């Protein structure tokens, strides 16, 4: 379990990938079961089974890293936070800005990560439909990225932050 405060300038993409790998070490049971199910389906239809390993790596690790790194990038660009608190345990991967971000800015920060992953997923789906319609790896990749749409719902940290941002705006009188 990781729970520490870190300077936002020191956080590179590689560092985020390391955190995600640490997170997957704890949360890997769920991902591993999903992976086994996928492999089972792959064996059933006798397709190129080795392709699932890069798809798993690119789809899960890279998508989570891009998601979290986008949050960090936007926090770095639009807020005056110098330090963020990073919490990683078996279920949670959470980035908490130390200085509170309010209103519209918090909505932008929360939307940045899942929005990019969802856009990548849509691009992959369109790519599959029109350029490589029989590629099963591309479909799996699109599904992996598409799962990030769950982050928009308030059960996840991002969704809760969007709700908080809207609440701030409504209470501030900007939205009635």
């Amino acid at each position, binding site marked *: 379990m990781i729970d520490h405060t870190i300077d936002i300038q020191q956080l590179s993409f590689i560092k985020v990938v390391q955190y995600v790998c640490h*997170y997957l070490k704890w*949360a890997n049971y769920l991902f591993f079961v999903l992976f086994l199910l996928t492999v089972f*389906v792959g064996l*059933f*239809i006798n*397709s190129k089974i080795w392709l699932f390993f890069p798809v798993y790596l690119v789809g899960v690790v890279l998508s*989570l890293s891009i*998601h*979290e790194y986008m*949050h960090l990038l936007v926090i770095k660009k639009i807020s005056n936070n110098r330090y963020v*608190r990073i*919490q990683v345990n078996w*279920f*949670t*991967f*959470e*980035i*908490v*800005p*130390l200085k*509170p*971000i*309010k209103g519209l800015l*918090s909505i932008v*920060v*929360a939307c940045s*990560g899942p929005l990019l992953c969802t856009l990548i997923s*849509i691009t992959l*789906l*369109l790519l*599959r*439909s029109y350029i490589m*319609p*029989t*590629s*099963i790896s591309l*479909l799996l990749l699109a599904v992996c990225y598409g799962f*990030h*749409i769950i*982050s*928009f*719902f*308030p*059960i*996840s*940290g*991002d*969704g*809760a*932050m*969007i*709700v*908080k941002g*809207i*609440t*701030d705006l*409504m*209470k501030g009188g900007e939205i009635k």
Partner: protein
Amino acid sequence: MTNAMVQMYFRKERFKDNLIQKVYDRIEGYNAPPLWAIVALIVLAALAIVVVTAASIWCMRRGYRFFGVDWKRGNAGQVGVGCLR
């Protein structure tokens, strides 16, 4: 009796073959979703997000505390961004 059982067996096998062929076709992409299906999926997901978020705010205004966000002191405390909570 034996003939009926044989017919039943053939029907079962045909059903299984059809099912496997459908799964195979679907996964291999011979029935790749058209553009309207992808757009419909995105629109449905966006609608679901808007409805769930609006319902959450509606509940909060009626006094429910929600994942660390409170209507009365909504600005207090910072919610972290992340994949799961």
